[in-house]
C-alpha cells in the first residue's frame, strides 16, 4: 500500500537571510553569524533564553526548525521525527574545543562547549524546545542527498514511526552556513519527491 506524502512547508537560512515557503521573512546584511542569529531570534519573538548558550550549528538548526514548528498546523504533541544531514558534522565546535586544549599552558576545556561536539545535539535542542519524544537521526553526507532523505522519511511515516518528519540540511562551518529544513506529512503543497526536494533546496 502506498500513500502519497507531501512537503507542507520549508525554510531556508543562508547569507544572513531567512526565507519561509519561498518568501524572505528576515534579512540582516553585514554582520557575522552570531549577530545575525540574534537578530532573527529577536525578529521572530523567540522567548527561549537557552538559545544563547547553544553552539552556532544548534542556533542555525533551531531557528529554522522554530519557524516551521510554530506554524499553527503543527501541534505540540504530534509525533514529528527529525532527520537532519550536513557535511561538516560539528567541526565548527570541534575546532573551538580543540583550541581550548591545544596549549599546555592555557588548557581550559569547557563542558559547555564540549557537549556540542556532536552534530545531533542540535536535534536535541529542537526536541527539548518542542517536546518531541520522537525518532531522530543525523546523517553526514559529502553533499545534499535528497534521495536518502526521501527514502528515510517515507519509511518513517509509512511504518508509522512518525506522523510527520522535519528533515533537511543544516550545515555550518565558520561563517559559511546553510539551513534548508522542510516538513513532510500527509498533506501539503508539494509532492514529496526527490525532484521537489532538490528543487526547493536549490531555490532560496
Amino acid at each position: 500500500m502506498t500513500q502519497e506524502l507531501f512537503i507542507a512547508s520549508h525554510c531556508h537560512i543562508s547569507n544572513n537571510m531567512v526565507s519561509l515557503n519561498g518568501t524572505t521573512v528576515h534579512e540582516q546584511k553585514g554582520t557575522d553569524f552570531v549577530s545575525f542569529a540574534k537578530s532573527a531570534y529577536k525578529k521572530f519573538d523567540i522567548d527561549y533564553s537557552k538559545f544563547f548558550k547553544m553552539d552556532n550549528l544548534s542556533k542555525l538548526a533551531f531557528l529554522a526548525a522554530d519557524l516551521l514548528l510554530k506554524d499553527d498546523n503543527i501541534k505540540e504533541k504530534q509525533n514529528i521525527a527529525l532527520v537532519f544531514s550536513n557535511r561538516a558534522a560539528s567541526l565548527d565546535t570541534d575546532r573551538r574545543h580543540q583550541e581550548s586544549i591545544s596549549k599546555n599552558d592555557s588548557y581550559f576545556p569547557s563542558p559547555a562547549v564540549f557537549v556540542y561536539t556532536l552534530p545531533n545535539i542540535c536535534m536535541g535542542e529542537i526536541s527539548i524546545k518542542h517536546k518531541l519524544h520522537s525518532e531522530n537521526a543525523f546523517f553526514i553526507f559529502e553533499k545534499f542527498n535528497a534521495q536518502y532523505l526521501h527514502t528515510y522519511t517515507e519509511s518513517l511515516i509509512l511504518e508509522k514511526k512518525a506522523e510527520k518528519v522535519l528533515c533537511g540540511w543544516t550545515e555550518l562551518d565558520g561563517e559559511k552556513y546553510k539551513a534548508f529544513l522542510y516538513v513532510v506529512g500527509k498533506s501539503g503543497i508539494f509532492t514529496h519527491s526527490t525532484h521537489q526536494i532538490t528543487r526547493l533546496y536549490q531555490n532560496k
Partner: protein
Amino acid sequence: MGAGVAITGIGIISAIGGNVSENYRSLISGKIGIDKITQIETVHKDEIMVGEIKDDNPTLEKRLKFLENQNSRTVLIGCIAAQEAVEQAGILDINDVRTGFISGTTVGGMDKSEQYFYDYFDRPEVRQHITGLHAGDSTKKIADHIGLKEGFVTTISTACSSAANAIMLGARMIKSRQLDRVIVGGTDSLSKFTINGFKTLMILSDTYNTPFDDNRKGLNLGEAAAYLVLESDAIVNKENKTVLGYLKGYGNANDAYHQTASSEHGDGAVLAMQKALEVAGMDPSEIDYVNAHGTATPNNDLSEGRALIRLFNGKVPEFSSTKAFTGHTLAAAGGVEAVYSILGLQNDVIFPNLNYKTQMKEFDISPVTKVKNKPLNTVLSNSFGFGGNCSTLIFSKAK
C-alpha cells in the same frame, strides 16, 4: 505476539567476576565489586571508588593468548565476554548461518589513546593505540576474535543505553529475517576520559554507591563487557538448541529534556517502557521484577522511580538496581543487566539492591535489599543514556 527472540548464549566479565557463574555467585552472596582504583593512574584516585575488573591487562592478554599491549582493554574484556557467549550457545561454526555482531561502546580505545597520544609521532610502535581509538575498532577486533568472517557488524554509541540498543537492533534484525543469529551487547573499560568527564559533572560518589537511597551521593564508574547470542526460531528448532530465555519486548524513546540529566517525571523512561510492553504484547501487571537503571545519582533514581510509579499506576513490582555491585558500566550496562535478568529468570531469584538504608522522601516505593527467591516469568530492564536516550528491554523465561 509470539515467544520473542530466543537467547541461546550469555557471556560477561565485570568487577564481580570473570564469567557468568562468577557473576552469579557474587550476586547471590552479596559480594560488591567496588573499590579504590588500581589500574589507572589518576589524580582523583583518593576521591573516587570504581567497579574495576580485577585482572590487569597482561592477565587478560594471557587468558586470550593475545600479544602484549596491542589492544585496548575495551577490546580485551569484549573478546572474553563475546567468546563466552558464543561458547555457551554451542556454536561450532560461527559462519554457518547469517551471523551479525552489534556492540555498544562509548570509550572504545580511549584508555590506550590517552596513554600514548603524545607518542604518536616519535613511536611508530604505539600508533595502533591512536588508530584504535574509535568505537568501531573495538567492534571489528572482537568480531575477528570470535571468527566472524562476513556478516553484519556495527557499533552503537548512545551513552549508557548503548548495549540495550545493540540488543534491540539485533532482535529487530532477527525478527525481520535479515540475520539468523546475532551477538549483541556492549563493552567499556575505565579510562581517564570517563572518570574526568563524570567528575566534571559532579555525579561521582566518593564512597559505595547507594541506589534509591535518600542519601545517595552519586555513581561509581565501572567497567564490564557482556554479550548475548540471539538466534532465530528456525535455528533453535533445527539444532534443538537450549534456550536460556526470550527477549520479548524492547523500546527506545527520547526524553527531550537535557543533555546530561533526566526529566523530572521520567517522560522518556515511561515512553520507553510503554513501547517495550507494546512490542511484548504485555500489560504492566505481567512484569514480575524490574532491574532498574538505578545509577544512584540523585537525578536518575528520582526520575526513574517516578517513571515506575507512573507506568505501573502505583503498583510497582519488586525492583532493584545491581549497580551497587558493578558500578555503572556505561555502554556495557544494558548488556550486564540483560545477563543478570536472564540469570534471575533461570534461577527464580531477585538480586538485591545493596547499600540501601533510607527511604527516599519523594515517594514510598523501595527496592528489594536482600536476595529473594520468587518465581520469575518476566523481567523488565531499563538503561537510560545521556542525551535523553532511554531504552527498555523485557525478558521472559524459557519454556
